């Protein structure tokens, strides 16, 4: 259960970003992208975020979580694919020399929506 510390880091970045807006606009949504392999439970993260922003200027804001699919590129046959069931070999030629393109370690705040 590390979603609370992740939510705290998100709120810190939100505060820093909103401070740069000089009080203009109200935060509606925080958009976060998380890699499919990254061990974060979206429901828990949402719960923790809501708990942290309660009774703050961001109390009405929501967090939107986009999951980045786990995809790879085979360096032998050069095909790209979604890694199914965490089988880290190429579904076309069975090679294990694949490079991960996305979904392995992303945990990013993409943007804030304000109005």
């Amino acid at each position, binding site marked *: *259960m*590390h979603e609370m*510390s*992740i939510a705290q*880091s*998100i709120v810190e*970045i939100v505060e820093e*970003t909103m401070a740069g*807006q000089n009080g203009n*606009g109200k935060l*509606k949504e925080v958009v*976060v992208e998380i890699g499919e*392999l*990254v*061990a*974060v439970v979206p429901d828990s993260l949402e719960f923790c975020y809501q708990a942290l922003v309660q009774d703050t200027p961001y109390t009405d804001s929501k967090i939107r979580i986009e999951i980045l699919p786990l995809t790879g590129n085979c360096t032998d046959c050069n095909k790209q694919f979604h890694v199914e069931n*965490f*089988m*880290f*070999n190429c579904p076309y030629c069975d090679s*294990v020399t694949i490079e991960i393109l996305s979904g*392995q*370690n992303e*945990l*990013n*705040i*993409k*943007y*804030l*929506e*304000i*109005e």
Partner: protein
Amino acid sequence: MAVVTVERKVLKKNEMVAGENRKIFGDKGIFTLNLLSSPGSGKTSLLEKTLESLSGRLNLAVVEGDVQTDNDAQRISAYDVPVVQIVTNGGCHLEAKLVQDALPNFNLDQLDFLIIENVGNLVCPANYDLGEHKKVVLISTTEGDDKPLKYPAMFRVADLMIINKIDLLQYVDFNLEKVIENARQINPNLEIISLSCRTGENLKEWISWLETQKIK
């Protein structure tokens, strides 16, 4: 409605501190390990056996991470090596800053190895870089041989998997070939050593693996 682009890593702060730790370990020539497993796989027992073999020959220090108690640090201090206990008070993983704060307790110029025993947990610690050189994940034969499939993130980022308690293989339904197959499915480059901390079987392979990692 307006959009303010942020494009920032949520764990950037931890990654920055981990980078600072990595520089310290590199500059001082200290090979640093992050030791990970479920509770009860035998991390502390492996450490005890390691210290038995290596103390006197190499300079080691240990950082112990636990949710509560300094029981593990007490076990380690019996081997006359510097040890710092980090109690996370409920926190499920160590962060780079906690490790950095522990470093002033050691004489870094003299150290060859720093072993960080993380909190027993196969989920959260996978996301937190501590600045270590390698991650070693421990699994024991009293657990399920499908554990690598259940916790793919951890086994994907690990460099070495140690299978402990092989003295119990004849009493449990754990299939050694199966766990290796499952682990290599997640991480084809994973190094694997099976051993028993209790009987000492094959401990040598682990000790020589560790010795070859020495930097200075």
